[in-house]
């Protein structure tokens, strides 16, 4: 077993920069807000540095970070400030807050279609197709059963097919 516990500032910084995009994109895919993703990104790496865990390998570290990101978005969603937002419902204002992103997103039907899915389907689809995770890994990360994940993927695909004509799924 390789011990990869990081104890120097340089190492923490390197890990943060390596996984920042991954954490940020997952946070964005779940919240639909770059501002929320900013906050969650900070929170995740604050927890990372406080935990100061020893990881078996990079996969373990990656899985841990994804897991913490999901938990952070849950906590963030249930915080007093954000209780007014229902993360299970598609946010009609997604992409409207950041002009740069808005331009990118309006050109991108796939992104819009994905972000319009309910959060649980969106997360499953994102983790499968973007993070290349297996159903078992998704189940572990999200904290549900593999059957549930398969159901979410199936329903998510169906919804995407309705929104994206002619879309083909590899899996």
């Amino acid at each position, binding site marked *: 077993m390789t011990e990869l516990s990081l104890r120097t500032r340089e190492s923490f910084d390197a890990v943060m920069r390596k996984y920042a995009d991954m954490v940020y994109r997952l946070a964005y895919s779940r919240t639909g807000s770059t501002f929320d993703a900013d906050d969650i990104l900070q929170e995740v790496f604050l927890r990372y540095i406080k*935990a100061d865990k020893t990881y078996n390998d990079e996969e373990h570290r990656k899985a841990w970070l994804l897991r913490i990101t999901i938990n952070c978005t849950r906590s963030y969603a249930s915080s007093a400030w954000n209780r007014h937002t229902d993360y299970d419902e598609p946010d009609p204002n997604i992409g409207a807050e950041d002009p740069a992103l808005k331009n990118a997103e309006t050109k991108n039907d796939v992104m819009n279609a994905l972000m319009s899915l309910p959060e649980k389907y969106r997360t499953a689809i994102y983790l499968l197709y973007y993070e290349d995770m297996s159903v078992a890994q998704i189940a572990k990360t999200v904290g549900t059963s593999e059957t549930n994940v398969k159901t979410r993927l199936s329903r998510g695909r169906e919804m995407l097919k309705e929104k994206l004509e002619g879309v083909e799924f590899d899996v």
Partner: protein
Amino acid sequence: MFKEQLNMSFENIKPSPELLDRISAMMSEEVSRKKPPLQMRAVKYAGIAAAVALAAGGTLLAVNNANHGIDTAGKGYSIAAAAADTPVTALPETAAAVQAAGAEEPAAEEMAILQAGIPVTEAAYTAEEAEEAEPEAAMFIMAADSAPVDENGMTADYDAGAGAEDNAVAPFVAKIAPETTSADGEAPLFPDAVAEAAEAAAPPVPEEAIMEIASIESADAYDPSRAAIIDGASADYLLPEEPVSADELPIEEPTAVEETAEDEAEVFIITVDDPTGVITDIPKTAACGEIFEIKTGVVYDADVLIYADGEEVARTHYDSDYWGFMFTMPDHDVVITVKFSGEW
């Protein structure tokens, strides 16, 4: 095809460099704010404790010598002597060393650590290690290491009363003196006046210091018999608190969300299989249709799932304080199982 499109669409979603720099700075600050490991802090405490014991230590060694010979460290009566790994040295020099090191008024935290009784093995370090972590502490240890020792492990010129005359160690002496007897086991070695004056000068132990003790792993090895060296009147608040495990979280009264069962409804038994993490007091029986919320602590490293007879209970509440699962009592006895998914 979908995968490629998705990858392309998310390429633009990334944190700004400014944000990364800010997080980097925040992480650096957090790292520098982190306390040094317990072992390194123990060196500091042990060093200061060594100085105190060296000054007041004639008392300790007199007791230990009378009862157990020079096996002071082995018996764990004085972590200070154990840290120094050597018997007491000459007192006048030590008292001067205490003052020179600025230890006129021992911090409450240090005092609490001393009295919590850190096991010898955790407190004993070499002078080199101590010097790296705490030069002042190392000075005491090195001084003790170099002390001449006779065949009994004692230095020739210790004076049992000398430590009490030193204001720097008076608070510690006050805690030790009432329970410390001379070699014949009868008369206290220190006059009451000295003990009272020293006790009055002793700073109160703040709650933070007591909590610090509770968080120390070594507190598990606390030996109640060591309370004998602590002032009896104040021993209670100095005792380390029991470490709180996940299953000892505060128990809340069950929250009856809705009462749908009729008064005469049949009551069924609820069996809880391993209630780890549950902070709700789950009732042992409930009527069919009764609904209540099962609360668990928030676990960031894993996910909590609750099953009733193997069927997953829906989580209805996410919060930073707790997670809630709404459970409806079926018309039969039920076994509730709490599971943590994933080993993170």
